[in-house]
């Protein structure tokens, strides 16, 4: 199994079913059209999946990937065109029907009931009953035990799902799909919540599924992942099929061009800092206590300076304390935080979000959905929320014209595509929602931006826009502290990189000496002086 993980491109293997092109496809979709009201979003898309292949479905946000997948998995049934699963023409009226026909979806947001046990989740909706409808829990448990042994999860069937880490929950979902004997498994951006080691084990599992002859549809934005996994790639753009190609025949530049419809140039040019000596943020011996066990700490002895016009990266594996540092500096962790911070030379007491924003320190969290946007708030109000005081008089009367114009100007910078500025943000695509969230952070005219995964889950085009903006901001003297899980982004954007390991800064890398290897080995605790404490 381990060998398969290292050589993901090799096909077939154990089952020996021969070249994929000669096998009958498990899914054939032909000329799929789908409209929402008067707007057609899919204009005749063809798509097929062979058994034993990983078929990556790529495209920018709003390209129609999700819609296509929702048709396949039974969420939408009002489409035109043909859908064959295992050779039978289908039109699923409900996701349950699709599941019965052998289609399983592993969502970005997991669909387990967190307050129920592992066994209860595996049998949810298809409970095995005895006489009088009595549920056969004993059978559930023994069967779950059997399914779990096929995975490498070392958990009890009785354990509650909420007690498991996200990666185990995802494994469990895959196990559930297997238990239902799915022939097609759809992965919808499964890695967005995983760290690198978890991603590796997920990929191993996917390769294993491919070996067993399942058809796998994999949706992702991450170019790197595409080439680690894909046998074939289908690209959609604006609801149309751009093309389907074998992964070996489609070089990355060509793929990006297919997705975006234009050349992006080389992302991430090297950049000069303009304000080299003015310290924007001076952090001394920052510590953060564990949320429940106060005697333990998740961040300890972190000291560093952040200068104006500088982008400093904060790298580290999940649980290394990077996000906590950002939240602490924003004042959002209250009494859990120890240490001294100075903002532009003055003491900065970390008293809470409101005061931080007033003084020019703004945080973008890595969780747009639960910590970022209110879905029903319209675009204008979402953007202006944090900087509203600018448009208010003493009693809090909002000067709406001024507000609207400012928001419009900022939105233009961001190349925000919204049907209307009065529409709720939930109607926007993920990338545009992220732009709204970023625009909100910029409106209070910050001096320090704390950005936690600013490009998570957004498409290549929007990413390029955001990089360009970040460079413009530091050009104006804004200081940025950046967390990103994408190594290329980290190396391309940052002037310096602080690598954290177990709550301490393990090493500081200048951009000239930073490399993927240096960052990774420090993050894993192999190099650097994490035992002695932070580096200043």
């Amino acid at each position, binding site marked *: 199994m381990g060998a398969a993980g290292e050589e993901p491109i090799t096909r077939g293997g154990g089952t020996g079913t021969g070249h994929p092109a000669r096998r009958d496809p498990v899914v054939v979709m032909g000329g799929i059209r789908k409209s929402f009201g008067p707007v057609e979003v899919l204009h005749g898309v063809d798509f097929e999946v062979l058994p034993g292949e990983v078929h990556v479905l790529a495209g920018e946000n709003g390209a129609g990937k999700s819609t296509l997948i929702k048709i396949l998995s039974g969420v939408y049934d009002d489409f035109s065109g043909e859908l064959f699963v295992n050779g039978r023409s289908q039109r699923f009226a409900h996701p349950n029907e699709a599941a019965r026909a052998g289609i399983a979806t592993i969502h970005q947001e997991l669909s387990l009931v967190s307050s129920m046990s592992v066994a209860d989740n595996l049998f949810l909706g298809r409970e095995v009953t005895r006489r009088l409808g009595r549920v056969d829990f004993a059978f559930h448990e023994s069967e779950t035990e059997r399914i779990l042994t096929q995975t490498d999860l070392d958990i009890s069937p009785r354990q509650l799902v909420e007690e498991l880490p996200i990666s185990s929950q995802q494994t469990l979902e895959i196990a559930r799909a297997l238990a239902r004997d799915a022939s097609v498994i759809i992965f919808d951006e499964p890695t967005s919540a995983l760290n690198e080691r978890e991603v590796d084990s997920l990929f191993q599992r996917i390769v294993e599924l491919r070996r067993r002859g399942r058809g796998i549809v994999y949706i992702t934005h991450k170019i790197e992942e595409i080439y680690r996994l894909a046998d074939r790639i289908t690209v959609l753009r604006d609801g149309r099929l751009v093309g389907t190609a074998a992964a070996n025949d489609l070089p990355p530049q060509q793929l990006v061009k297919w997705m975006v419809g234009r050349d992006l140039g080389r992302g991430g040019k090297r950049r000069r800092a303009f304000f080299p000596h003015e310290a924007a943020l001076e952090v001394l011996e920052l510590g953060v206590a564990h949320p429940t066990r106060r005697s333990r700490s998740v961040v300890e002895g972190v000291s560093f300076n952040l200068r104006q016009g500088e982008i400093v990266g904060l790298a580290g594996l999940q649980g290394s304390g990077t996000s906590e540092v950002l939240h602490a500096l*924003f004042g959002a962790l209250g009494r859990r935080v120890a240490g001294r911070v100075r903002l532009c030379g003055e003491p900065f007491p970390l008293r809470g979000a*409101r005061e931080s924003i007033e003084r020019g320190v703004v945080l973008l969290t890595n969780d747009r959905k*639960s*910590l970022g946007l*209110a879905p*029903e708030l319209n675009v204008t*109000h979402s953007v202006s929320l944090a900087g509203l005081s600018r448009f*208010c008089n003493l009693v*809090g009367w*909002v000067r709406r014209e001024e507000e609207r114009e400012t928001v419009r100007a900022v939105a233009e910078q961001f190349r925000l595509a919204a049907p209307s500025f009065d529409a709720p943000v939930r109607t926007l695509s993920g990338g545009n929602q992220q732009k709204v969230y970023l625009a909100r952070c910029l409106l209070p005219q910050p001096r320090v931006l704390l950005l936690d995964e600013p490009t998570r889950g957004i498409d290549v085009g929007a990413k390029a826009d955001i990089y360009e903006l970040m460079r413009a901001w530091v050009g104006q003297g804004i200081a940025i502290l950046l967390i990103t899980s994408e190594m290329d982004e980290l190396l391309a954007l940052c002037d310096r990189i602080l690598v954290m390991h177990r709550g301490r800064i393990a090493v500081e890398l200048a951009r000239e000496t930073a490399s993927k290897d240096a960052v990774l080995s420090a993050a894993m605790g192999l190099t650097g002086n994490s035992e002695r404490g932070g580096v200043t």
Partner: protein
Amino acid sequence: MSPAWRVKLTVWWTTPVARALLALLLMIAIGGIFNAEGAFFRWSVHRDMLRQVSVHGMLACGMTVVIITAGIDLSVSSLLALAAVSFAWLTLPQGWPAVLAIPLVLAFGTALGSASGALVARLRIQPFIVTLAMMVFARGLAKVISGGRKITNYVTEADGTTRVVDLPAIFGIIDSKVLSGNLSIVTIIFLLCVLVTWIVLSRLRLGRHIYAVGGNEEAARLSGVPVRRTLIAAYALSGLFAAVAGICQAAQETHGDPETGMAYELDAIAMVVIGGTTLAGGKGSVVLTLIGVLTIGYLQKILSLNAAPEATRLMLTGAIIICAVLFQRGKA
């Protein structure tokens, strides 16, 4: 009609206001059909309907604000009774002038509303529980102040003698009509409450904060919204409107009754929901509530004009709440 117009109209149809208005127009059309031998076409019928929904409507204004914060305020009916009793007690046995009594009662209602808000915001108790407790507590307090009886202008002294005081002019003023008898004062007060609510919700920073807190409390906090203050302000506003409604109720009944306004909070919630403001919070408006108030008002009026028995009225109201909500969702 040009295509551009048609598109605009199609889009407008799907807005909550359009749907709420359509439901209201439907209700009025039904009134036109079952017009009780032309009674429905007399303005006085509409005027009376407006007067009858006014007190409920004032409660619905505050309820709208609280519901947008993703909360609920069950205490409004009891606060109404408490305000009615306090107002009657101050003006009748105590003989206070209205100019002093009214601000004091309003402040009292606001203070109790703020207390609910503080429990919700600071101690993180669920709004349903907090305001349920406040509902019971305020009803009890109303009975303490009134001694469990109606406070009328027949005042019993400590020595057991009874004297009669003149009903202060304010009672008559609130219960009168203007525009040669075509509009009740309470209706004007109700419309003022709607206006105040509208200004708060769509013109003030506080309103933005209310929507943001209701839509995503944690996101609002991280955006620098003073979440606690916003929540307290929402419940305080609800308490204020309940006090206004209580004064109007006392004036119309010419006494302060500790048992008055029973279950009004449910009418207020129904009015808000029929308008299209959802209990999930983060969206809705007082304009929708105004339409909801009128829809329920017309429903009651049409049923009473056609002499529908009480039982039928209740059952129909229940059914119509469900229909209205489904219609709002566009599934009817």
